């Protein structure tokens, strides 16, 4: 046996290069085979989808782009037979779609508010951003005050404060500011995208903390707290949002004296925020239920107090689990903001809906153009939210991967 191992024999020191996969499994062709024609069902679906695209795309492209009217002074060009989308109409009405009737010389107030809001939102949502605690305080405490002052106008208290500062310092410019800066713009002039964003933001910002509080309250061992939370959640969840809006809009003014009646925009804002909160509470409750008992017990064994246990152990896990549910609620809420139109608020969709009746522009293609534009707007926002949540899910689930 030993002479079988001859010292002069060839011994391969390295592996030979692996052969490439056969051409049918490689490159574009391989990808197509694997992904589009993997089996009979897959092949059938591919063919069906391609056929559908081929059937739809030329018409859509022609209507949306080629035959579309891009600029025109009024609706006449869009009324010609065979024209497609009337983007000129969207361009002419863009200011109304964005700001409603907000006075045109004060639009910077809306722009500035949106800009500050966007900057703060990026700060808070950017996963690697620093000092988020400060950002949160700015967003939840300072920003609402600044926002209301910018959008609605300087309140009497602020004005008075400024005036007294001006008297103390003897500054004429401050006194002028106290008297004239930021005149009140009533909410009856607000409208468009800006109101849609406002309603959605208020709903989202209020619903997350309030929802968590209600979910914790529902699990509370104190019977009064638990009972109150259960009643609130079940009652508000038990009625449609439309009903809440109608109640707020038509019944509330009958209960309270005329000059105590809340602002017409504030009513749906409160309704939407309350509504979003109870749905959020149920989503968060699902997350709390998904945290294993052992986590609670481990935290208690470490001697953590109830609140520290919740804050450090339970809520981080519970909220991570329900991110898809939370974002789902936000997306639903964002689209539900269109319901405020039925109580006479000019949100984005209502603005589109009204302006298509304008005799200067109205025509056979105007309604469709307006609605396509609205659909694109809502899609961009909802898709963006959905993508963000996917990213956050991936980042936050590292800890649970084994």
């Amino acid at each position, binding site marked *: 046996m030993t002479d079988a191992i001859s010292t002069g024999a060839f011994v391969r020191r390295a592996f030979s290069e692996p052969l490439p996969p056969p051409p049918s499994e490689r490159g574009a062709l391989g990808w197509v085979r694997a992904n589009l024609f993997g089996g009979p069902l897959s092949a059938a679906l591919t063919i069906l989808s391609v056929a559908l695209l081929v059937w739809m795309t030329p018409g859509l492209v022609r209507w949306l782009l080629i035959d579309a009217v891009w600029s025109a002074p009024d609706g006449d060009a869009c009324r010609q037979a065979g024209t497609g989308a009337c983007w000129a109409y969207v361009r002419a009405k863009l200011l109304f779609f964005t700001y409603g*009737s907000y006075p045109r010389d004060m639009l910077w107030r809306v722009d500035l508010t949106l800009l500050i809001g966007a900057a703060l939102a990026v700060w808070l949502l950017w996963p690697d951003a620093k000092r988020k605690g400060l950002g949160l305080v700015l967003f939840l405490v300072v920003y609402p005050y600044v926002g209301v002052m910018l959008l609605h106008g300087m309140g009497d208290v602020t004005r008075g404060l400024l005036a007294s500062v001006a008297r103390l310092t003897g500054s004429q410019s401050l006194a002028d500011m106290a008297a004239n800066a930021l005149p009140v713009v009533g909410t*009856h002039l607000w409208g468009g995208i800006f109101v849609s964003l406002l309603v959605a933001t208020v709903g989202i910002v209020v619903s997350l903390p309030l929802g968590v509080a209600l979910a914790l309250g529902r699990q509370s061992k104190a019977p009064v707290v638990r009972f109150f939370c259960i009643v609130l959640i079940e009652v508000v969840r038990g009625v449609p949002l439309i009903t809440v809006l109608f109640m707020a809009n038509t019944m509330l003014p*009958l209960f309270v004296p005329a000059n105590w*009646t809340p602002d017409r925009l504030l009513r749906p804002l409160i309704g939407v925020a309350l509504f979003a909160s109870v749905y959020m509470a149920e989503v968060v409750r699902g997350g709390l239920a998904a945290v294993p008992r052992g986590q609670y017990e481990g935290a208690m064994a470490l001697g953590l107090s109830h609140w520290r246990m919740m804050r450090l152990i339970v809520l981080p896990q519970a909220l991570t689990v329900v991110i898809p549910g939370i974002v789902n609620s936000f997306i639903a809420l964002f689209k539900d903001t269109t319901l405020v139109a039925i109580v006479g608020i000019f949100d984005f969709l209502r603005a589109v809906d*009204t302006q298509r*009746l304008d005799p200067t522009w109205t025509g056979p293609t105007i309604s469709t153009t307006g609605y396509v534009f609205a659909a694109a707007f809502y899609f961009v926002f909802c898709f963006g939210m959905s993508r963000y949540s996917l990213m956050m899910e991936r980042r936050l689930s590292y800890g649970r991967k084994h």
Partner: protein
Amino acid sequence: MKFLAGTLAAVAAFSFGAITPALAQNPANASKTLEQVKARGVLACGSNPGLAGFGIPDEKGVWTGLDVDLCRAIAAAIFNDPNKVRFVPLTAKDRFTALQSGEIDVLSRNGTWTKLRETELGLLWTGVNYYDGQGFMVRKKLNVNSALELSGASICVQQGTTTELNLADFFRTNNMKYEGIAFATSAEAVKAYDAGRCDAYTTDASGLYGERLRLVNPDEHVILPEVISKEPLGPTVRQGDDQWFNLVKWVHFAKLNAEELGVTRANVDERLKSTNPEIRRLLGVEGDFGKPMGLTPDWAYRVIKHVGNYGEVFHRNVGDGSRLKIRRGLNNLWNKGGIMYAPPIR
């Protein structure tokens, strides 16, 4: 669960207990509307959130329309400034509540004057600023000149509306046959008519003119002169404030009288020197007709100066000066074939 039901009942009892007194007493301490408006410095006017020609914001957010201009006229009479109006867009459902609760001072939102609305809701119509009614739109090439020639026609109509019932009544009364094709929404009905599925489309005449603009070729369609139902539209106020009621009513009458007397926005200043006693009384040169309403003697002058007479307002918003091109018809002055008639100012 029982506890929960009990609490709910208690909550319900409490809220309804709270509603009853609020509804029973006249809200917003009526007879003071004018004082409230003056104190507030702005008139709160309930408007349609979007009806072409009657109340609709343009791309700058400025409200335009026949109903909207009535509110501007009231503001002009009170403040000498037609822009001191806050328009509150109201849907059909919450319009009357907003008026009852005192949220608005006057509702000028193409509301049809009916007996029940006035007697049951505690409201008053101060008059009619637009006589509307159901009409028909047909293609010009059909060569139909009257609704009475529509026998045997197929007619597109919106389902479940009084429009549908009026249509049936009209054809039965006139012993004519028709084929009604009903659609869930007016948009669908118009589309079907435009596609040629029916010979005629019917809805309120004011709406027909607006719908016509949305057809592929508006010029190929004509609106027949007959109106087969009564839809008197006008401004509404709360009951219990007669002075305010008179003010709103007479602002409208002043616009009608001005048209009758040929006083327009352009010539109103020159007419101040007129020797015609009626014009002198209208413009406040003679007598003080504003005082009993809590206004200045030149109240009507302000209305005409800032907003114009009824004919001008009609022309600009819904008539030939607009794209709607609605004919005056019933809305013409009484001495020009219509039924718009204002009592004299004296």
